[in-house]
């Protein structure tokens, strides 16, 4: 009986937690399917209205008005390029750097280690104007390259890969050497397949990290053609239901990725089960 009561209490608390998470998002979604005059008169809505297609299609495809020159569709495209670029660039460079740190006897290894890992302590926010002036000097303002590369300058994934490589048994390299594998073969044919879970987890993490960037795209893009979704929140104008619709759509890609790939993400980050 006590068992039943405590477990019911657990379910109740979890349910309240879920409601705290879900209700605000649901209300914005429900409100985004109404008309602006409805919202202006009656406030946020709990129930769905019938302007879903009208509102969402207008935001996605209409050029001019909501934003001046760019459609939301193009912004999603830009965000996707940016997030994918950040994920691939940071994961590939981190994989390689961690490999050199773990599998080579390097001169000044400690110094190199610190040069790479101390950067974790200096997030982009702390060097944002100088980074901008570097980008301006290199003529990279208003380009995908400018959106992607400074965000990819991160050693977080390197830290994870280094930890992971250290747990790989020494015998793997010994037997690979007996089979005549050189350093590239060992890296590509043995180590990368072995770190697949970790790679997927880091790709997800860096994709969401790249997609969610707000301040950097705001600073480094002056041309609307390079605007991303999240920074667009700052720029959007127009009627309230269209803004609701844009907010709703902006959160769909990262949430979808986290939910669909949840297992890989958790498995990789916690290295368990």
């Amino acid at each position, binding site marked *: 009986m006590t068992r039943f009561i405590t477990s019911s209490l657990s379910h109740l608390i979890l349910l309240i937690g879920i409601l705290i998470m879900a209700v605000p998002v649901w209300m914005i979604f429900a409100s985004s399917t109404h008309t602006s005059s409805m919202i202006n008169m009656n406030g946020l809505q709990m129930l769905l209205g019938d302007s879903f297609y009208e509102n969402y299609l207008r935001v996605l495809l209409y050029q001019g008005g909501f934003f001046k020159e760019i459609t939301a569709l193009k912004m999603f495209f830009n965000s996707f390029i940016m997030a994918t670029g950040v994920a691939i660039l940071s994961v590939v460079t981190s994989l390689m750097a961690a490999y050199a740190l773990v599998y080579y006897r390097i001169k000044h290894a400690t110094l190199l280690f610190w040069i790479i890992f101390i950067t974790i302590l200096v997030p982009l926010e702390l060097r944002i104007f100088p980074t901008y002036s570097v980008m301006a000097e290199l003529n990279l303002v208003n380009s995908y390259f400018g959106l992607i590369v400074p965000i990819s300058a991160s050693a977080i994934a390197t830290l994870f890969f280094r930890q992971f490589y250290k747990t790989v048994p*020494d015998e793997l390299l010994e037997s690979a050497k007996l089979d005549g594998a050189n350093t590239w073969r060992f890296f590509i044919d043995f180590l990368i397949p072995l770190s697949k879970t970790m790679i997927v987890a880091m790709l997800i993490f860096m994709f969401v990290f790249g997609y969610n960037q707000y301040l950097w795209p705001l600073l480094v893009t002056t041309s609307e053609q390079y605007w991303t979704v999240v920074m667009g929140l700052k720029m959007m104008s127009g009627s309230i239901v269209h803004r609701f619709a844009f907010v709703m759509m902006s959160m769909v890609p990262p949430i979808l990725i986290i939910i669909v790939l949840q297992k890989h993400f958790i498995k990789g980050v916690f290295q368990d089960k």
Partner: protein
Amino acid sequence: MKKVQFKSSYSQYLFLAPQLGILLIFLYWPIIQTFRDAFTMQDAFGFGATFVWFDNFLFIFDDPAYFIAFKFTIIYSFVITLITGSIGLLLAVQANNVMHGKSTYKTLLIWPYAIAPAVVGVMANYFFSERFGLLYHLFHELWGFNWYESVFDSYIYVIIAGSWKQISANFIFFLAGLQAIQKSVIEASMIDCKNSFRRFWTITFPLLMPTTFFLIIINITYAFFDTFGIIDTTTIGAPSGETRTLVYKAYMDGFRGLDLGSAGAQSIMMMLIVLVITIFQFRYIEGKIHYN
């Protein structure tokens, strides 16, 4: 350090080059410029800069607005850490308790983690708007809530906005921590101690210490840096600068005020704070916790 390693004269540098190159150009170069900015003063027309030693630092220490931002950042990180940590732990313990639906609960609680802080801020904005914000009107009924004017109320606004999605992160890590505790330890403690509440605080919680301290650092970093998007989409510092974090203030001084010297000096102060927290974490915490 691996016992078996490659020895080569050059190929390790090929592996290191991409990351080192990106870090040197897009991280170290800007950091050097930050230091240069912090110790120089631009002349009014932007033609040149004079070396001014620590003047920029003295100016920020003389600036009452800096201490207001400093105070807010400390309060903000403390409250966010406390709220999100305890709610995250509470939910994780319940999710770990239930027999059925564990993975469903996990999925239903994990997704807010993925939402950008700026998106959360815009959403919060709708709930705290004077026109149709539900929470605005609820709190207004209760005690005359008005974040445009009251510092306390504006704190409540940004704390709710800042805590919401961070509960998910705390939940995920606490749940992973709980699941990593060996079953035998829990079973043994069940024989020794019948009171489940006391059992949690004397056995389970101490075993969660590594997770707890890791999350404290994560939450502080979040409150320091990631909340920029939240502040910029909610109060923008309202009533009059009381809800500006240090990062937000540095950005505003550099961007709106074009005072790169001050922004640089503020950035270096932040780097020092982060460094102190990190050293504290390594020296103090790592030494005192027993990992199982």
